[in-house]
């Protein structure tokens, strides 16, 4: 044995293996972190302090950067933008779940006969499409029918490959948008969104013209009633959510502390409705009524002196999942009914008669939704879909069999078997997407709009870039980055605290 004690030798070997990596990590991760913390408390400005200046002017200014962050409206606006863009996350998650469920169905039927029929039908369809295509090309020529023929052939081609190749074909096609998402596809979308020459608007404009003719012909009360129908639906969803949460609370599945924020989140769409076109008075009345019902119920529960079977924060995760799903529905209803209500006004607008296609990325109102559409396109077949797909195949078969024996409907089977089994995955995806959403959006903003119009599409990440690399206010930029870190840190600890417990349920 050598003279070096064994434990010391072990440390040396361990560090030797670690060395190539840890030197890099220390130099490009740990040291920058320390530097960044220091920077956040200085007024480091590239215009005043750079290496070409003889007398650098660098001062320690304490929390001034942070105070400035919260007093100037810029940060608030960009943070709101980020939150607005993040509202797309539940939609994307829902779409990923639906896609995963569709893909998890076995497209090959277990009965050989049915599969043979399917194959025969597909080939029949394909030959019909080809025949019709050739006929159309002969009759109306390349320019008239070419596009129709192309799209028809494409869709029946996909169908044929799907029938022959099974789910792998569809999964590949679903996954392509998310796999290729990056600057090149954003450049592509910028062209698609072009208000005059882009294919979206060249398709939309004739369709909208027809729609305005239809709207003009219909009686106006049909549209004004949409407001009340929408409102009723939102109220019903809200009520359903509240009653479900209360039931969970009474059954001891969710703690009292955890219930409050989820209930408040349910009311968020209603608050938004207040800001939009809904009659404020009715919305307030509804909110107040809800508050009264809620108080009565809570007081009654407390008076009954029941045992609080779970701790305050228990079941936070399941509450959030329920609320997320309901919020998506509420937002959809809100959006659809608002649009429907305003249709006649938009059509008969004297300054701009008829419906016109939006300006997409160029308009203040549409820029953010445009980006969310791109995000949605990439989210349907994303990694989240693959995670859901893996989770779905891991659901124990016995559970479904048990549900079948109980005669559960498909819907009941989903809500009582699949959804609870998927809960850990959903929670993981929700947390990861929130973290990603808070620091994301830079690529899109930089390549689609450069943050405009009027800062409408500037997320926090773009703000940091702007301050750090365009205006050169390094200290300020570092401070923003650290505020962002604190938010992410909060969510991560929240995940540690509740995520694991929820997963173990």
């Amino acid at each position, binding site marked *: 044995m050598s003279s070096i004690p064994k434990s010391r030798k072990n440390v040396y070997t361990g*560090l030797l293996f670690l060395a190539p990596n840890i030197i890099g990590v220390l130099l490009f991760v740990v040291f920058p972190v320390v530097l960044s913390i220091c920077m956040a408390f200085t007024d480091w400005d590239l215009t005043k302090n750079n290496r070409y200046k003889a007398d650098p002017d660098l001062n320690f200014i304490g929390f001034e950067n942070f105070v400035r962050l919260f007093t100037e409206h810029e940060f608030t606006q960009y943070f709101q933008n980020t939150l607005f863009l993040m509202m797309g996350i539940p939609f994307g998650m829902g779409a990923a779940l639906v896609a995963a469920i569709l893909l998890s169905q076995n497209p090959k039927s277990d009965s050989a006969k049915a599969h043979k029929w399917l194959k025969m039908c597909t080939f029949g369809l394909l030959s019909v499409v080809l025949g019709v295509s050739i006929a159309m090309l002969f009759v109306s020529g390349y320019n008239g029918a070419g596009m129709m023929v192309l799209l028809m052939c494409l869709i029946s081609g996909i169908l044929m490959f799907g029938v022959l190749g099974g789910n792998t074909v569809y999964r590949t096609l679903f996954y392509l948008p998310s796999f290729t998402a990056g600057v090149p596809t954003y450049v592509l979308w910028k062209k698609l969104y072009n208000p005059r020459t882009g294919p979206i608007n060249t398709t939309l404009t004739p369709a909208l013209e027809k729609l305005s003719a239809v709207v003009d012909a219909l009686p106006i009360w049909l549209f004004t009633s949409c407001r009340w129908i929408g409102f009723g639906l939102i109220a019903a969803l809200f009520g359903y959510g509240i009653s479900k949460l209360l039931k969970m609370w009474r059954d001891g599945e969710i703690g009292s502390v955890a219930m409050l924020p989820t209930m408040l989140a349910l009311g968020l769409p209603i608050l938004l409705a207040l800001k939009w076109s809904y009659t404020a008075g009715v919305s307030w009345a509804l909110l107040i009524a809800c508050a009264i019902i809620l108080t009565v119920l809570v007081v009654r529960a407390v008076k009954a002196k029941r045992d609080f079977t779970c701790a305050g924060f228990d079941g936070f995760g399941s509450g959030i999942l329920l609320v997320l799903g309901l919020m998506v529905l509420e937002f959809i209803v809100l959006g659809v009914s608002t649009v429907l209500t305003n249709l006649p006004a938009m059509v008969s607008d004297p300054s701009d008669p008829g419906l016109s296609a939006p300006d997409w990325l160029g308009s203040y109102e549409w820029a953010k939704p445009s980006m969310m559409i791109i995000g949605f396109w990439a989210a349907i077949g994303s990694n989240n879909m693959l995670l859901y797909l893996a989770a779905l195949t891991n659901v124990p078969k016995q559970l479904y069999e048990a549900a079948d024996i109980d005669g559960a409907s498909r819907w009941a089977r989903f809500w009582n078997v699949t959804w609870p089994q998927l809960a850990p995955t959903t929670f993981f995806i929700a947390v990861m997407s929130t973290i990603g959403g808070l620091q994301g959006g830079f690529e899109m903003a930089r390549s689609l709009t450069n943050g405009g119009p009027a800062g409408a599409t500037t997320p926090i990440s773009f703000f940091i870039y702007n301050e750090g690399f365009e205006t050169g206010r390094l200290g300020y930029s570092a401070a923003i980055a650290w505020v962002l870190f604190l938010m992410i840190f909060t969510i991560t600890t929240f995940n540690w605290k509740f995520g694991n417990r929820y997963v173990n349920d």
Partner: protein
Amino acid sequence: MSMINTQVEEVHVHEPTPERDRRQFIGKTGLHILLACISFMLILPFVWMVLTSLKNLGEVSDPSWLPGEAGWQWSNYLAVFEKIPFATYYWNSLLIAAWVTFLQVFTSSLAAFSFARLKWRGRDKVFFLYLATMMLPGLVLMIPNYQIMITLGLVDTMTGLILPAAFTAFGTFLLRQFMLSIPSSLDEAAEIDGASKWRIYWDVILPLSRPGLITLTIFTFLGTYHSFFWPLVMLKSEHKYTLPIGILSFSSTSGQETNLLMAAVTMSVVPLIILFVVLQKQLVAGIQLGAVKG
């Protein structure tokens, strides 16, 4: 299936009756049509992209997606190479991605071996430091890292692009988790046979970690290929541009030439599509493996 069997299992197994065949057929047909329609909608942007890249500039804004009178302009693809140093962008992207991936996988596997298979004092404390850095948003590091690059004189160099991306805690973490699942009896046996730690790493652990290594390779390669922020701030001279930066600069300088731009976009997207189709199995497994660590 024999007669007796069918009779015994009659209660559990659905018999292939004409009724059932019909139900199955309708159900599966509906499923296929739905899946095909969604796939079709999702890839429509790509269809438009390819078709537009083959149009004459004058027909780009026509409502018809197909090239018109002027015919299919295959020469657009060559025109891109004349207009911008597209091949250079390609090469730069590949070179950087290859270097980052090599450094990342090699150093991470060494570090992961140290964390997972060696016992030394202070190991867990160092590992906790690694874990802590994983929570940091990349944005926090960008600004100070850029100042470091200025000091080192590495701005606008390939080295400056590669180094900060090559050393992350994530790779080490992923591989460590993977190596922990390899039975420890294997390296104990090798140790008894007199193998050095290096031999254990190289001959025992590394071959067994192949799925993990493949996952990390694909993740890192794709991440670097797509990476945008760091190249954007680091690169100043055009001949060093990577693909995303090159495409962006092309779109801002001659964005009006939609057909050429789409040809360039097609050429940067198609390799990815091919890569995906080829590597699909490993990729899907890798993503599911990568998330389990969460």
